[in-house]
C-alpha cells in the first residue's frame, strides 16, 4: 500500500477543501506558528481512527470541526480522506479488490463519525485494521506528533515499555 493524497475540508483551520499530494522521498512542510501545520498531522490520525480528543488537542471529538472565525460561521461537518495506491494488491481481503483505496471519515457536530472505503460504509474496526496492516495507524511510530519526542524523554520507565509493545 502506498499513500498518495490527503484531502480535508472543515477540519480545524482547513475549512476550505485542501489536497496534499504525497510524493516520493522527503516533503518539507513549513510556515509560521499557528498556521495549521500540526493540524495536518492530526488529520492523518483522525482519518486513521483516532478516538481520543485529547490526542488531537481537544476536549471532545467535535473540537476538530471548523469552529468559525469573525468572518465565517462554524461548520457542522469535518471530512478527511486518504487516497491509497493498492496496485501491489497487498491490502486485507475486504479491500483488496481495487488498485485505488479511498478511506474517508466524516464527523457531524453532535452526531459522531462515519467511515467509508471506496464509498461503501465500513466499521471503525475495518479502517484501523487496514492501516495496522500497513504498519501504520493513529498511535504508531509513523505518526510523530509535536510533543511526542518530549513525552518519551519525560515518560516514566513503565510508559516507555508500551513503545516496545507496539513492536511486539
Amino acid at each position, binding site marked *: 500500500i502506498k499513500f498518495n493524497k490527503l484531502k480535508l475540508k472543515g477540519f480545524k483551520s482547513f475549512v476550505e477543501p485542501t489536497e496534499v499530494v504525497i510524493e516520493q522521498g*522527503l516533503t*518539507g512542510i513549513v510556515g*509560521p506558528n499557528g498556521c495549521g*501545520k500540526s*493540524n495536518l498531522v492530526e488529520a492523518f490520525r483522525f482519518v486513521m481512527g483516532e478516538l481520543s480528543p485529547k490526542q488531537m488537542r481537544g476536549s471532545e471529538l467535535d473540537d476538530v470541526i471548523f469552529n468559525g472565525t469573525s468572518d*465565517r460561521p462554524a461548520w457542522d461537518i469535518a471530512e478527511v480522506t486518504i487516497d491509497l495506491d493498492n496496485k501491489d494488491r497487498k491490502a486485507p481481503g475486504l479491500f483488496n479488490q481495487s488498485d485505488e483505496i479511498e478511506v474517508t471519515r466524516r464527523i457531524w457536530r453532535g452526531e459522531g463519525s462515519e467511515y467509508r472505503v471506496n464509498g461503501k460504509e465500513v466499521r471503525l474496526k475495518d479502517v484501523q485494521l487496514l492501516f495496522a496492516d500497513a504498519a501504520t495507524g493513529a498511535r504508531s511510530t*509513523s505518526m510523530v506528533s509535536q510533543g511526542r519526542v518530549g513525552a518519551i524523554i519525560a515518560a516514566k*520507565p513503565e510508559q516507555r515499555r508500551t513503545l516496545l509493545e507496539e513492536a*511486539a
Partner: protein
Amino acid sequence: GRQRLLAAYGIVNENFQKLFFQLFGGGKAYLKFTDESDPLEAGLDIFASPPGKKLQNLSLLSGGEQALTALSLLFAVFLSNPAPICVLDEVDAPLDDTNVDRFCSLVEEMSKTLSTKFLIITHHRMTMARVNRLFGVTMPEQGVSQLVSVDLEKAVQLKENE
C-alpha cells in the same frame, strides 16, 4: 506474551544502538528493563553515552542529546515494522546544525531503502534545504489555513535574507 515482548526488545534494542551511533556520529546506547525477571510489568530505562562522554541515564543528557536519543528510539521501533509513510512534526527543534545534518541523512537513507514517503514539519533552515519539495502553510485569511507549493531555492533564499 512475554516471549513476544522479549523478542521485540531484542530487535528494537539492536536498531536503537545502530541508529544512536548514526545520529550522534559515534557513542553507544542501550535499553534495559528495570526488572529483568518481569519484563511484562517492568519499566524501560534508557542509557546513553554520546561520543567521548560517560554512560549516563537519559535524564542527565543535554536537551538536544535527549531529543536525539528519544528520536533514535522512535525510529528503532519504526524500523522493526516500517510503514510506507512517516510524518514527523518538528522533531528537529532542539537540534544544532551538525545533528540536524545527520538527522536529514538518516531520513534520506530510510526513504531510499524502505521507499517510505516522509512528511517533515520543520522551522529549521537546514532541513528545508535537504527535502525534495516544500509545502508552505499560511493563513492569508485570519484563522483559515491554506497550502501552497514553495519553490525550494526561493524559500532558502528568503529565509537567508531575514
